[in-house]
């Protein structure tokens, strides 16, 4: 082939590749809109302000974890420990407060439990070169154990009034939603505009090349898990305030699956190197709305769970479609 036809040929395959990704993405988008349109027509109070706020609150409390998970997925890792970390943090903060502890200190304690677990995960994976899946699965069990121990497997309730400042509303918008939106914007800028953010994608795309290029891959990997931990801690504060209690079962089994699915719908890949915050948030809104519709339509929780399982299977297949 001469240069010209070679370029043309390269150009065509390029368009095809890009096209495929765009095609998959637009199909996902259109499908999401159709599903939501059909469901919302069936539901009476879907667009009532109360329901919208309700959905937003749900989105924001799980949303913090999907933000952290997006970072971890981008560097090619995974963090399964988040639900356990939240419960351990909540139970520690909760039991401290009902023992008469200061609410500000309690909030800091909740946050630091998140950071400590992020630190453990980060050290084990970045320094110890252990497999992220196994490490975070272990810290999940560890943190669940801590939560059960601290709460003695009972519900911790009667938190001090002051603590509920984290569940206050500015106008009609809960504080948690505002903090979540701020966090999402900051993180989005961080990932797309800063050097360190670019490094996240490079490490996820090809960690060997990143290392040779002079990027401190250990530091980047470590940082991703720390971010995940900080966001888990932050989420835990708002979740505890919203629920008004802390238990060792306060975060449902499906949260991990839901957040992973949300990120992948939004463009992240389990193979690393891909993902963006806005996509993950939209994905999460989609997942939450589906659950919300099931709820309002009176579909049983277990049937809803089964359907969600199928949706997640479909989503993982989307990941395959996008990358091959």
């Amino acid at each position: 082939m001469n240069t010209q036809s070679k370029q043309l040929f390269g150009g065509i395959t390029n368009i095809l590749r890009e096209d495929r990704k765009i095609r998959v993405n637009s199909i996902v988008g259109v499908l999401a809109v159709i599903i939501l349109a059909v469901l919302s027509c069936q539901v009476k109070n879907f667009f009532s302000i109360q329901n919208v706020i309700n959905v937003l609150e749900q989105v924001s409390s799980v949303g913090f974890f999907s933000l952290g998970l997006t970072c971890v997925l981008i560097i090619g890792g995974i963090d399964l420990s988040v639900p356990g970390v939240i419960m351990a943090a909540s139970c520690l903060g909760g039991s401290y407060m009902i023992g008469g502890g200061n609410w500000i200190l309690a909030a800091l304690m909740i946050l630091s439990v998140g950071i400590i677990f992020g630190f453990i995960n980060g050290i084990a994976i970045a320094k110890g070169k252990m497999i992220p899946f196994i490490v975070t699965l272990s810290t999940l069990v560890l943190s669940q154990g801590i939560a059960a121990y601290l709460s003695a497997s009972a519900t911790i309730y009667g938190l001090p009034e002051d603590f509920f400042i984290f569940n206050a509303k500015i106008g009609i918008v809960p504080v948690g939603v505002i903090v979540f939106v701020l966090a999402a914007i900051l993180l989005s800028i961080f990932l797309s505009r800063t050097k360190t953010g670019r490094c996240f994608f490079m490490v996820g795309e090809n960690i060997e090349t990143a290392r040779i290029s002079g990027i401190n891959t250990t530091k980047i990997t470590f940082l991703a898990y720390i971010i995940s931990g900080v966001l888990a801690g932050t989420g835990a504060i708002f979740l505890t305030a919203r629920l008004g209690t802390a238990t060792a079962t306060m975060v449902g089994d499906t949260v991990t699956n839901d957040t992973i699915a949300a990120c992948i719908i939004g463009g992240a890949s389990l193979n690393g190197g891909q993902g963006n915050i806005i996509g993950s948030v939209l994905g999460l809104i989609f997942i939450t709305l589906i659950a919300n519709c099931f709820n309002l339509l009176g579909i049983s929780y277990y049937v809803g769970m089964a359907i969600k399982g199928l949706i997640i299977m479909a989503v993982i297949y989307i990941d395959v479609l996008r990358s091959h």
Partner: protein
Amino acid sequence: MLTMSSISKKFQGVRALDNVTMAAKEGRVLGLVGINGAGKSTLMNILGGVFKQDNGKIILNNKELTFNSPIDAYNEGIAFIHQEPQFFLTLTVAENIFISDLYMSKFPIVTDKKKMMQEASKYLAVLSADIKPQQLLEDIAIGQRQVIEIVRALTSGANVIIFDEPTSSLSLNEKDNLFRTIRKLKKEEKIIIYISHFLDEIIDICDDYLVLRDGKMVQSGLIKDTDKSDLSRMIIGQEIDRLERASINTDNKETILKVENVYHSNLLHGVDLELKKSEVLGIWGLMGSGRTELVRAILGLDRVPGGKCYMNENGQMKEIKKAELLRSVGYVTEGRHFDGLFLSMPVWKNVTSANMNAYKSKKLKFMDNKKERSKTEKFIELLNIKVPDANVRLANLSGGNQQKVIFAKWIDKGADIFILDEPTRGVDVGAKLGIHKIIRNLASQGIGVLLITSEIDEMVDLADRVLILCNGEIVSELSGNDINNANLMHFALEGVKE
């Protein structure tokens, strides 16, 4: 006799093959040559049943064949020997050979290992390979694994055997073995098709040749009627320029990098070297002599005990930690897909990836994408990278252009030491010359280049000084006119004897 006559194939409106006719005869080796994208792979993929031709016929022993899948081709006795064959590492050689058709014992679910061993050793004996059928695959050297794939092809009754760039990961010694095997296959009256970039090999092993360019046949004929320069002219359509050899005397130049006493498990036994400004320092040795390991040890990529590293800082040689060296050198690695590129990122992100600090905006420290793109456009022009624009994803570039992007990345970083490990591997003849020019240019600008290559011509054309590495030790040093094919070959073969 295998004939592919008047084969044409279009992809998305682009003619990949245009009326190509190929004839291969029993007991002869046909060399198929052409640059990347000339249509060799497409032609072979049609023969292998991967693609279907738009026009033309495949005729084997007077029988017209139609392939709808690779299995059809396999059943007609057409076998591919791949560049890097895939195996089950924890199984035995015999099991790997018969993996698609295991011998069963009387109990239908149990394999008949004894029979497999016997059959396998029979075929291994035909090729006089030094491999035992009961050995585990993981214990077999990479270079010998190809023999196993050849045996696999023979046991399946293959009559047409296609070698696709078989020597690119072989040492000289292993290459000799492969050629011996191919000559044995010739005696067995097999039809052999041999694809390679290395014209020396084509001249050495082939009886006939077919040159493709831009999907068209350029010429075919007998190897004995042609020579290397003829072939290369046919391949690129014009006389290729080899860089004029211009070795410089580096005795008086300033040293910029000094390495002492590098050890690496049992591969390196105390290597010292000094790299000077403006010189291309070659490291010549066989595969397995510790070339790549030496570089990785110097750069601190593999943890090794001992070894000191000094760098020139304003005229003073200062000791630095080995890990720090990586920050000040440009390292073009042996396997660009493994550790050289971000394949699904655009060209511009690859080019700036080692020098991102330079593209931070003043106030917010955000990455200035516009600046990155325009700098990349400059490199595209400077290094003659063939790509429509800086936004194309790297996976869509040819090997030579990908390699140039890696050079651009290190030049952008402003490295004053370049370490090149097989810089033109898997790169076609045209792009190779471009890369050689880049390397020369770098050296003339005062950069010290450490060059590792298995290609004798490349070493002769580029190096100002050559260190001979043998069994983990530097045994000799060549400079000036002593750097020639005969000397380098001599040292390479010496290494084999020991």
